[in-house]
């Protein structure tokens, strides 16, 4: 591709929306094209300058209080049935159904899930993220098999750091990473491959917001295997279609580096 063609695509590069193959080709091109390299750099700098200039206003404490009051008022109106039933999930359920559900919960001993933030479907959402990423044209934002490239890439993008194991000699390779959002919290999404299978490793700060009750857990899902644990205040979730034993092997590698 000529410089002119690359320059038309630079926007995708600075916005991290370039497909991985193109990204590789672009990296190869800039390695010996100072013009394109400086163009990319100045565009990145321009983007950074705009980001800093654009973060200009913060909600005042009064506004925060007002918003919270609005939400709670509306929420309690709703709970009290002042709004139309159709607009509410809660009162859309007949009372007998709620009672029946409560009995079922008791019977199943699911007090564990009583805290509403511990949504049992959180883990399924990780499986969805895994599938969505693999289906996208641009699964990784940083393409590298080198842990020393991938790890620093996350600096400033996520609010924590983590360690990556040496994969040399293991059957796994690191394909790259991207920033993932889960319940509005940024975290790392690493993509490993094992033979022809892809494995997603999600790393987030562990908090009740994540909605994962289990300290560690593995699941043979219908189509995906899932493994999760916490380590050093971080929540790790592995999702893949590889078998549970293989997933366990990767988990063990990651756990060697607390």
């Amino acid at each position, binding site marked *: 591709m000529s410089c*002119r063609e690359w*320059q*038309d695509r*630079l*926007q*995708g590069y600075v*916005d991290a*929306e370039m497909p991985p193959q193109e990204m590789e080709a672009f990296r190869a091109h800039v390695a010996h094209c100072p013009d394109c390299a*400086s*163009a990319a750099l*100045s*565009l990145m*700098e*321009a*983007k*950074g*300058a*705009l*980001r*800093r*200039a*654009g*973060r*200009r*206003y*913060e*909600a*005042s404490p009064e*506004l*925060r209080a*007002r*918003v*919270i009051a*609005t*939400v*709670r008022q*509306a*929420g*309690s109106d*709703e*709970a*009290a049935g002042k*709004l139309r039933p159709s*607009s*509410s*999930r*809660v009162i*859309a359920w007949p009372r007998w159904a709620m009672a029946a559900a409560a009995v079922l919960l008791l019977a199943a001993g699911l007090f564990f899930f009583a805290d*509403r*933030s511990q949504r049992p*479907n959180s883990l399924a*959402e990780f499986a*969805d993220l895994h599938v969505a990423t693999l289906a996208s044209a641009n699964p990784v934002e940083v393409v590298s098999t080198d842990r020393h490239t991938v790890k620093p890439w996350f600096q400033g993008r996520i609010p924590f750091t983590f360690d990556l194991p040496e994969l040399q000699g293991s059957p796994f390779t690191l394909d790259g990473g991207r920033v993932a*959002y889960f*319940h*509005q919290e940024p975290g790392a999404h690493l993509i490993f491959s094992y033979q022809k299978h892809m494995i997603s490793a999600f790393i987030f700060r562990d908090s009740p*917001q994540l909605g994962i009750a289990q300290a560690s857990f593995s699941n043979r899902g219908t189509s995906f295997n899932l493994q999760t644990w916490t380590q050093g205040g971080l929540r790790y979730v592995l999702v893949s279609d590889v078998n549970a034993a293989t997933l366990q092997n990767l988990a063990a590698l990651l756990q060697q580096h607390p």
Partner: protein
Amino acid sequence: MQPANDSQQEFESLALPLLDALYNFARWLSHDQSEAEDLVQETFAKALRGFSSFAPGTDFRAWMFRILRNTFLTSRTGLQAKLTVPLDPDEEAAAGVTWETPETLAVASATREALQQALSELPLAYREVVLLCDVEEMKYAEIAEVLSVPIGTVMSRLARGRKLLRQMLASQRPAVIRKVDGRR
């Protein structure tokens, strides 16, 4: 407070962390503090009412920004902005607008104040897309959802908006380093 219900609590835990970002966006759209505050409050109220229709697992942030933007567009200031700033009818033609290094440097080296001034003068259709992409760091797909337009339109508006910004900033700089005759 009162016996708040679960969906309201869930809404709070998802929405409150977005307060500053939504307010920042509202200020940039409306250019007015009290209008921005009202917009944000209305957005939260509307979003909570519509929360039962929000599909879990889809992009909550894009959903909130979309509500805020739609609320703004139907406000008086929003209607005026829409009327006074017709979108470039030939949007697609702007796709692939090339940068020119001196202009780009004008953005990178502009003072924060100059950038803020240029951004606030940018027509609404470009201002919002630049804010969502560069300030909120949304993906193109997310921006497309907020604006309810195709991704191609996001990309072309973004290219055009950035070009306008570069031109605005470059014109403030000495002519010596300004490039007037297009790309090399």
